[in-house]
């Protein structure tokens, strides 16, 4: 059900972005927004989901949640890398720079991304078992604290280079732009759900095969 839904949503999003939404006269590269922001929000959702599963590992001692937390963070890191790449391309087209170290929100997102990259180093430096599950869970919970900081930095930063589209007065865009954005966000979240369920199923089958192999040897 999820993969066809993701395909339909992506096809709809692409059609709306390129054939329906009017081009921004001030910034022709603004079309990147329709993928860049949903990808960034999806990466936050992945990290949030990973932290929720990590909380279940520590709170309920649910060790099935350990692999769920890992897969969500893995997906979040992929979406995070795509946020950095698409953002960098947009920055180059609009600001004339691939990256601006003076922009706090960019640096904070990079810190968040690198923090989660280090999650994998920590996880794979510990032998599989409850200790690894607990350490990974604690790390994932620390990481999720950075997510609202990164999100709010776009609003609190003093440099005002990074555009702020969602303010207290609502989305600062036309109805067609907002519709395309919503479809694109739905497409990204569905893509995450699809990849999450496929990767998780693969991990679980892999674990069962290993158990079976040990039982047979």
């Amino acid at each position: 059900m999820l993969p066809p839904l993701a395909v339909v949503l992506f096809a709809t999003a692409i059609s709306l972005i390129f054939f329906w939404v009017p081009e921004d006269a001030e910034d022709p590269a603004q079309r990147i927004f329709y993928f860049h922001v949903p990808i960034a929000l999806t990466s936050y959702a992945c990290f949030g989901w990973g932290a929720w599963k990590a909380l279940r590992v520590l709170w309920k001692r649910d060790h099935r949640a350990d692999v769920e937390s890992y897969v969500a963070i893995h997906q979040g890191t992929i979406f995070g890398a795509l946020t950095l790449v698409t953002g960098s391309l947009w920055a180059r087209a609009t600001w004339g720079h691939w990256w601006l170290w003076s922009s706090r929100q960019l640096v904070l997102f990079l810190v968040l991304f690198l923090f989660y990259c280090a999650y994998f180093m920590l996880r794979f430096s510990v032998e599989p078992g409850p200790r690894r599950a607990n350490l990974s869970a604690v790390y994932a919970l620390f990481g999720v604290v950075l997510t609202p900081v990164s999100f709010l930095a776009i609003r609190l930063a003093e440099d005002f280079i990074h555009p702020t589209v969602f303010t207290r007065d609502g989305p600062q865009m036309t109805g067609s732009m907002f519709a395309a954005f919503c479809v694109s966000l739905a497409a990204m979240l569905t893509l995450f759900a699809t990849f999450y369920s496929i990767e998780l199923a693969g991990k679980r089958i892999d674990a069962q095969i290993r158990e079976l192999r040990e039982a047979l040897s």
Partner: protein
Amino acid sequence: MSEKYVAAAYLVVFVAVLAYVVIIGTKLARLEAALAELVERVRARG
């Protein structure tokens, strides 16, 4: 000029999704082979 950056941004996402699907497909093929090997071993045991 900015069109090439827009195209590059969408292409990067498309390539990443494609690469992910290929990697997952390869992993699933490996799991299928491992499962087939285990089935053979169980059958050989009688």
